[in-house]
């Protein structure tokens, strides 16, 4: 693989990860916390209505997890392409 092709392939995989993670980012915050809040509020977990919980708690936990998943995925990817020096 030439240097240029390698960089291209790396970038393509990176973009795929980013799109996947941003889709989840969108679903938990704008989806569960805002657009579908009313439907989810009919479900109750302990004292929380679920839509309310996503808006004020759940989405934030997911954000943190998403970044650490991204860190792991990218460290692996860097290694695969030898960009980890």
């Amino acid at each position, binding site marked *: 693989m030439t240097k240029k092709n390698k960089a291209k392939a790396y970038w393509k995989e990176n973009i795929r990860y980013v799109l996947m993670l941003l889709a989840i980012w969108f679903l938990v915050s704008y989806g569960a916390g805002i657009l579908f809040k009313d439907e989810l509020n009919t479900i109750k977990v302990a004292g929380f209505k679920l839509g*309310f919980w996503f808006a004020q708690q759940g989405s934030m936990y997911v*954000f943190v997890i998403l970044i650490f998943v*991204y860190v792991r995925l990218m460290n692996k990817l860097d290694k695969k392409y030898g960009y980890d020096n």
Partner: protein
Amino acid sequence: MTISYLITAIGVQDWTYILVGLTFALYIGIAIWSRANSTKDFYVAGGGVSPWANGMATAADWMSAASFISMAGIISFAGYDGAVYLMGWTGGYVLLALLLAPYLRKFGKFTVPDFIGDRYYSKTARIVAVFCALLVSFTYVAGQMRGVGIVFSRFLEVDINTGVIIGMFIVLFYAVLGGMKGITYTQVAQYCVLIFAFMVPAIFISFQMTGNPIPQFGFGSELIDGSGYLLDKLDGLSTALGFNEYTEGSKSTIDVFAITLALMVGTAGLPHVIVRFFTVKRVRDARKSAGIALLLIVLLYTTAPAVAVFARTNMIETVSNKPYENMPEWFKKWETTGLIRFEDKNDDGNIQYVADEINNELTVDRDIMVLANPEIARLPNWVIALVAAGGLAAALSTAAGLLLVISASVSHDLIKKVIKPSISEKGELMAARLSAVGAVVVAGYYGIHPPGFVAAVVALAFGLAAASFFPAIILGIFYKRMNKEGAVAGMVVGILAMLLYMIKYKLGWFDDTIPDKSEWWFGISPEGFGTVAMVLNFIVSITIMKFTKAPPEEVQEIVENIRIPSGASNVIKQH
């Protein structure tokens, strides 16, 4: 005399002096230890900060007086709608980590206008970026100095202006001496102080009310007195008094959507946050420290809605339909500051706290929800004093971070890069220090004489950042063909649209009055308009680009180079 006797015998006032004095001595000690010796130290802390230290510093830099003092209060009055701040001010870090931080670190310069200027190979682009950075940072910092003054005046019983001046000297000392290096390590200490100060009362109160010491679970638990779930009770109390159900809120869905997005994108576009990721060693450290920063921020941000629910419930139960003369001491104390106002409209001696403004007799300033919370819950004196130290840590750390962006914009982006490129390293360092002094003085002036619109404008700093920087940086990284014509046009149109909308609908300068909600475009408030202005920026940038010529070969190579994570430390040396 035992130690525990001593601890209870000391009053709130003395505890405040002790804790604030100790924390200030700590910050000054750290500043002396971490003086800056070069411009690289001054702008990016030498570029060798560990991911954990950078994460803590970013978290402290990020969480301002608004997060610490005002946010839980705002949520406790807004209920569900408060989610716009919670999601908006945390979700931006995901964008930052995935779309900006690694690439800007690889690019490896000192400031955001550096990136814009080099990537778009143009002095005009750089100057537009400097203007945006100064506009965003100044609107933001004036609010911080005011916050410092308020905490000083309420807890140390000096007047607000003296408070602002004391705060100015402290920030001046460590920002001018230490630059980025100094503020990074003081911010690490400030994070510890502020998170401890926020969590301790929250844990106490959660345990008191629900028996669960973890506030994040506590506010979804049943009350200890057996009256059912806390949130159900608060919903019931709210509707009985004529307010919206706490868990429902009152803003329209499109506005909640727009505000959340504007805050997220604005967060990712704020120069004082972005510049943080220039200070770590490698690209992988930039990614990791974004994660750590968010983790540390979320610790406070998931506690705040719990504090909001506890405080709201406690307050309603203490005051609603209770005789005025039976009010506890804290009520009278905050009444003298004017932050609680009671007017007995029907002369029955009882407090009627209801949604309907004609019959409502009680006005409570939302800022006191966090400050008065420990007193309302009868917590020990040292906990009350701790909140003061925490509030100061939050305001000072954010002010220092912003001042540094302002000083770097002047000394580096304007003097070194535009006005006098031949300036020596020593001269530039001196210029950086002098601009920091200038920035502190201007910020202090606005802290003492706040123009009426500062408070209104601070929230809009996010809209301005979303409308200007975010699209320019994203396109600069992800779209190789993006050229200077497109980027400059996009930034100018974006920021103008945001400014005009803000002036018309928030400040009301065009029509002598602030226009009614019904006139908002698409039902989007000025706070949410950053989303529209950002979309406009993207559209204008891409359209103009299509009709102008592609960027030069070497710029396209820069873009290819920043997409590859290896070799980041070499880039900064070449500078």
